[in-house]
């Protein structure tokens, strides 16, 4: 269809000047302690570790390394607050405190967005337009449930669990903190939360918000650390409920360590979602959906549409348009307002992605990357697609967690469905077709917890999120996200 002579030129002519978000209004302390019992305290071990800006490789701050003793301190504070002020308070007052968190986040939105991009590498446009507003909205949503729980469970009396131990990942740091803390508090629990080791800063700023909102001390405790700290939280005998978002590998470790205990748990793990485009789809919008599905947030999304299935009759057109669209994606400084794809979160993650790029090529797949420039310093990966792959390729089976898309064709609906389900994962899926009946048939039969039809990567506090199979157990968001934080008594 198209030839070299009808190639579009995206890289010459009018360019966009740098449009940096200013950082002169934000405050990042040189060092943060652990937020326990309403104040920042020094870690018992007196050890700290650094957090780095992945776009510049420069140190931003240092945060405390919480030991087992620190975890114990935090859990004790959470328990004391639970049996004390938090349980004694009326449910509507609890709601008011959570509303305060939401309101203050809205007031401090730009500072949070800027720090989120500095610490994690995601573009300021995303943290400003998606992460921070959604985080505030999450607190708003669950604040409203606090005094309404009896309506959510017909025939049952909802009762809080106690202390929730929560471990969150580095891809949506503040948003994940909101997803965990908001429902836990709304249901009357208290919290010990550990942010990811590469992205602790917005959690520390959230601790400041919680302090400024005057929540009773100990209701929310935020402690920094790495895998060991997380394990201490999971295994602490006085934690009643564990919530984890992260890799499937660690999720399984956690599930094993909780065996034999009576701790409730939810796990939100990895994915390798199928994004399925039928010939009767609105093609241009489907291409945009592919891009939204795998390239934004650098592909660091558990529900990313990382396996593309295109019906064969439109495959050439779709791939052609996708390549053109990739040329207009700007990879660069996360703080530049025009950046579409920011920095890869860490050196380790970049290494993982690059090893998969090599595996893909070694396996004989055809790799295509956009031609954009990337900065010198920092961790970067251009948007990448692989064609000439099948379900047997490792890059099609494994979760890469980067801006890397594996593309296959399919012929019939049944084939698309079979291949979509042919994976141990089951977090999400996408369906693109103009035909309504087909949408409902596909969503009925794809074995995944979230299905996007003619859209992708849409999130809302009212909408439940979570996986089938090895993508995890339990749901977050919506009415369905409450049950994980309650006992339902008869």
């Amino acid at each position, binding site marked *: 269809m198209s030839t070299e002579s009808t190639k579009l030129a995206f890289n010459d002519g009018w360019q966009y000047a740098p449009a940096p978000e200013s950082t002169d209004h934000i405050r990042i302390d040189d060092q943060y302690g652990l937020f326990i019992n309403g104040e920042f305290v020094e870690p018992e071990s007196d050890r700290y570790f650094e957090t780095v800006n992945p776009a510049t490789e420069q140190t931003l701050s240092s945060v405390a390394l919480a030991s087992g003793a620190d975890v114990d301190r935090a859990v004790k504070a959470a328990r004391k607050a639970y049996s004390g002020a938090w349980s004694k308070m009326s449910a*509507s007052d609890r709601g008011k405190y959570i509303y305060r968190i939401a309101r203050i986040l809205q007031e401090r939105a730009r500072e949070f967005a800027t720090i989120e991009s500095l610490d994690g590498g995601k573009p300021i446009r995303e943290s400003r337009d998606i992460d921070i507003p959604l985080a505030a909205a999450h607190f708003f949503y669950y604040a*409203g449930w606090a005094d309404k729980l009896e309506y959510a469970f017909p025939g049952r009396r909802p009762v809080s669990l106690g202390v929730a131990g929560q471990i969150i990942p580095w891809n949506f740091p503040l948003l994940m903190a909101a997803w965990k803390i908001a429902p836990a508090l709304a249901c009357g629990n208290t919290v010990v939360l550990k942010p990811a080791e590469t992205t602790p800063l917005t959690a520390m700023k959230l601790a400041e918000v919680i302090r400024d909102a005057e929540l009773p001390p100990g209701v929310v405790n935020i402690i920094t650390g790495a895998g060991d700290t997380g394990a201490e939280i999971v295994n602490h005998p006085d934690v009643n409920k564990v919530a984890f978002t992260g890799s499937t590998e660690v999720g399984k470790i956690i599930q094993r360590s909780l065996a034999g205990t009576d701790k409730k748990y939810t796990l939100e793990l990895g994915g390798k979602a199928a994004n399925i485009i039928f010939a009767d789809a609105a093609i241009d919008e489907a291409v945009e959906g592919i891009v939204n599905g795998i390239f934004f947030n650098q592909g660091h999304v558990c529900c990313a549409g990382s396996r593309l299935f295109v019906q064969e009759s439109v495959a050439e057109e779709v791939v052609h348009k996708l390549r053109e669209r990739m040329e207009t994606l700007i990879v660069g400084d996360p703080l530049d307002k025009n950046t579409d794809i920011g920095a890869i979160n860490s050196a380790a993650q970049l290494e993982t992605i690059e090893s998969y790029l090599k595996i893909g090529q070694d396996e004989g797949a055809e790799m295509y990357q956009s031609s954009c420039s990337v900065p010198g310093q920092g961790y970067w990966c251009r948007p990448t697609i692989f064609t000439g792959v099948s379900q047997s390729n490792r890059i099609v089976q494994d979760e890469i967690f980067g801006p890397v898309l594996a593309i296959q064709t399919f012929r019939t609906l049944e084939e698309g469905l079979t291949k979509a389900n042919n994976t141990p994962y089951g977090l999400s899926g996408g369906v693109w077709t103009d035909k*309504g009946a087909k949408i409902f048939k596909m969503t009925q039969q794809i074995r995944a917890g979230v299905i996007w039809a003619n859209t992708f990567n849409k999130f809302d506090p009212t909408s439940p999120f979570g996986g089938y199979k090895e993508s995890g157990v339990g749901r977050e968001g919506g009415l369905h996200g409450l049950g994980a934080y309650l006992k339902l008594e008869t």
Partner: protein
Amino acid sequence: MAGSTARVPVAKTYKIYIGGKFPRTESGRYFALNSSDGSVIANVCRGSRKDFRNSVVAARSAFGGWSAASAYLRGQILYRIAELLEGRNEQFVGELVLQGISRRKAKKEVEASIDRLIYYAGWSDKYQQIFSAVNPVSSAHFNFSVLEPTGVVSLLAPDESSLLGLVSNIAPIIVGGNTCVVLASEQLPLCAISFAEVLHASDVPGGVVNILTGYREELTDQFASHMDVNAVVFCDGDSEVARNVQEKAADNVKRVLARFDNDWTTDAGQSPYLINETQETKTTWHPIGS
């Protein structure tokens, strides 16, 4: 206050609130609200049928936008109304005291009104989740029932309450996406108009809430019979009143909601079922297949 240095205060004119503006009643008539010592607190607008007619036009015009607003936005606006009412806590306490309520009761009433708004703000994006359904029909169809706002609601606010009764009825109506025309308490009308000012300052689009003052006897029939009103809510009366409203409402099959026994001063006066009462249920079918 005695003394030659006492400042001369400026008396407030109480108008009505229609389409986001504060006009006087087109009839030019008024009734005096007196304090217990006989002095005149205010000349209150004696709202007319034309004021009511204009209000319904404004409410209908505002309905499209308000019902299409996201649940999140409506919740944010209700929360904002609560914030602004909290900010004017003292003003409203003073107004209640002026109308003969004890200071202690006035404080409780204002605080309860603020908390009630927060309560309903929290329902905006949840009532749909508890009252909607996906129905497992036996044919190959996806079938779902959702709630939609009924439209323009006329409300005769509780007469014995200047603020809390008013707020307790307006909130569930508008959080559900309806617009409304409200007749304030006849004996205690002032807080309704001041509340209109709070609404006006809270990003509530003009026409979503319209507030009139006036005589019950003159206006009840209008509230019950207007053909472009979808539901009528009334909070005082007896079986005679109820019968009259029902009869007038029948001309366009208005939804008739009598709320006689609600105790607005306790938690019994708030519930998602009050939202549900001004909602319609829409069920849609779609084939599942290829």
